[in-house]
């Protein structure tokens, strides 16, 4: 039985068992490897994507839960790196190893979609589910504020 949904605005169909986590459907069946596997237990946030605009951990989201819904991944932010968050990430040279950054960007994008002027506490709340083992947090914080300012001007 296949499940139909949208990924980054385009129709998608998956044939995996419906209890398969969305993460593995994206990576192994649809070939979209920007979304990463870190812990398999919703502890690290590396697999963060949006489902109907909400940031979710795709390692804990079964395929059945996204039937008919809109999924957005890092590939959908902008392939050309022109989303305000990507621009800010590049300006601040945020990534080090880079492995967590897809998840960081998606958590930040969900935050800014609702709040384009986040306080430090707002950033702490939205971003503390995303582990960066390289410790890029100071730059993530600065880049989010920078992107928020850009979005407020837009």
């Amino acid at each position, binding site marked *: 039985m296949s499940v139909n949904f949208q990924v980054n605005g385009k129709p998608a169909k998956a044939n995996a068992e419906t209890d398969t986590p969305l993460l593995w459907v994206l990576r192994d069946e649809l070939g*979209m490897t920007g979304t990463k596997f870190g812990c398999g237990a919703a502890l690290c946030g590396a697999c963060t994507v949006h489902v109907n605009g909400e940031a979710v951990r795709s390692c804990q989201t079964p395929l059945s839960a996204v039937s008919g819904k809109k999924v957005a991944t890092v590939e959908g932010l902008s392939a050309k790196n022109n989303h305000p968050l990507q621009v800010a990430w590049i300006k601040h040279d945020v990534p*080090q190893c*880079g492995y967590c950054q897809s998840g960081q960007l998606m958590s930040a994008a969900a935050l800014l979609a609702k709040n384009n002027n986040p306080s430090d506490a707002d950033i702490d709340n939205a971003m503390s589910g995303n582990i960066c083992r390289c410790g890029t947090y100071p730059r993530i914080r600065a880049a989010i504020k920078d992107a928020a300012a850009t979005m407020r001007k837009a």
Partner: protein
Amino acid sequence: MTDIQTSRRSFLKTSAAATGGLLMAVNLPGTLGQAMAAGTVSTPNAWVHIADDNTISILVAHSEMGQGVYTSMPMLVAEELNVDLSQIKVVDAPPGAAYVNALLGAQITGGSTSVRAGWEKLRVAGAQVREMLVSAAAAEWNVDRAQVKADKGMLMGPNGKKATYGAMAAAASKLPVPEKPAIKDPKDFRIVGKRTKRLDTPAKTNGTAEFGIDVKLPGMVYATIVQCPVIGGKVKSFESAQAKSMPGVQAVVQVSDGVAVVADSWWRAKKAAEKLTIQWDEGAVASISDASMLEGNRAAAKSGKVIPIIASKGDVANAIKGAAKVLEAEYVSPMQSHSPLEPMNFTAHVQGNKALLIGPTQFQQGAQGAVAGALGLKPEDITLKTTFLGGGFGRRLELDFIVQAAEISKAVGKPVKLLWTREEDMMHDYYRPMGVNHMKAGLDASGMPVGVHFKVTSQSVTQRAFGLPKETLDPFMAEAAVAGYNVPNTQHDLVIHDTGFRVGYWRAVSHSMNAFANESFVDEMAKAAGQDPYAYRMKMLEGKPRYANVLKLAAEKAGWGKPVAAGRARGIALMEGYDSYMAQVAEVSLNKDGSVKVHKVTVAADVGHMVNPDTVEAQLQSSIVFGMGAVLKHQITMNNGRVQETNYNTYEPVRMYEAPQIDIVLVKSTEKPGGIGEPGTAVAAPAIANAVAALTGKRVRRLPLTADAIRQA
């Protein structure tokens, strides 16, 4: 101190020669050429490939694991090649003799050595190619070499003569490589030393950067592995019928370290692996716990063979005997896991007597050699491609997961991507060994030390990893043991205690435990002397300008001596490591639950010449946050040989809400470059511990510095 550094650097070379362990891998024929496009590329030397369409590739022998080498290494070559970074492509170097890290004696990314090893070598490499291009153009145009200039990928001669580097590359490659080309005076640098945007950032913000986990080969299948919960345990027998009946499962394979399940997707492999029933022969490690490890270390500290780290100065025993006050303390650093965010993985395709390996490794030649040994192949028949590493921190110096991938591929005859679960990763690490440091000092009537005795007891990673003979000095246990302070009588000893458990090199290696002990103890001495910890340190730094300078800069920037917000206190610490000098001031308070909140860390660093100052800052931020986790939160514990921490809930790295403000002061310096990936991790521990002691009056000598540890201190 210099003696120790020298021995650390030359160590692996010597060890490899002595044991033969690395020689096979080191003397491989270069496999240069696999990174080149067919037919159109010229290779003046091992570091620069130039295509006739003027595409210039710079090869990087180090693995990019976040520390910025895919930018800093090309900067060094480009500086002398006279090209802009926008004109070059970065290519990962294959295993090869030309790419051996001279500071470590093998093609290894570790020990904060990349810039130090490449500083001169890569500038010379760029200059060689520039001179060869100039010579080729001069010959072609029949003019004097002095009349030809090379800049931004173009060669320019008299009378408007012009050619691209690409047009002259083939001719240049036929010329002898000049051994000692002229290189620039650093004051003429146009690229090196300038803040430079990382070349790998754009690929890391749109999901296109390829990590090991993202590798895909035609016909590839997916595997996961179940290893014995007691590291080193072996499969006795296993039942796989249920696993094999699961959807998509293609094979269940026993490999050296456990049982692997192969399926048409990773999730299916993982689900099937849960259905395996495995009987284990747990082996000797099953009797170990972290409590028994600590007892073993303490016993060894009393009765084990004492190995001098450096010649004693004066007579410590006598000096302490005659001192006005005697202080003694024991410091304990627990085991730590690397836990990079990308779990261990590798992709292998073994076909007959050839193998293709693709993935994240810090040790290219080791990977080639280990797989060759395990599968009975010749190293030169193994092709290895390095992807981006989703963190390394020392874990990817190890080769276990690479051999496993190759074994599985050989068994199923297909390309296989092996990926561990996080639980497998955390429970099967090569952990930072436990360290027990004993410090003893005698203070004179003015409170200053007349004698200091340092002793570290820990396990030798180098014995396991590189066959260091027993009861000989492991320089990777002695780092930062000798502090910079002027003390008339000193003795530095080391005792190696083999716990029987598997240990590895962890970010900053022994700097962590040794700096924690040394710099906590200096604060304890200052307290006993009734003196300010900063002023006390300064008194002992006469004739040590680089130490004194960073200490002063950090203190000034942090407002040392000025009032601090209510409920907060500051702590200071100082260290030299990897040829870099660093001081940190941590400002802390206690949360309501009694845990430590680090508000701000001020760091002053003199790292000598910098290649990319922005990367130096990024590495300082990174190493401090990384160190903070180990200081405040996490440790690896064991019971019946089983690691108890299994995921990021029980071994929880620092999160955004805990990350402090980090203020950085960089010293402008023309000293030789120092390493910067690691020292900050080591200095964070004593800076924070000293701040907590200043705040609470309680000295925690056993990490991690949790709310409970403070209550019990």
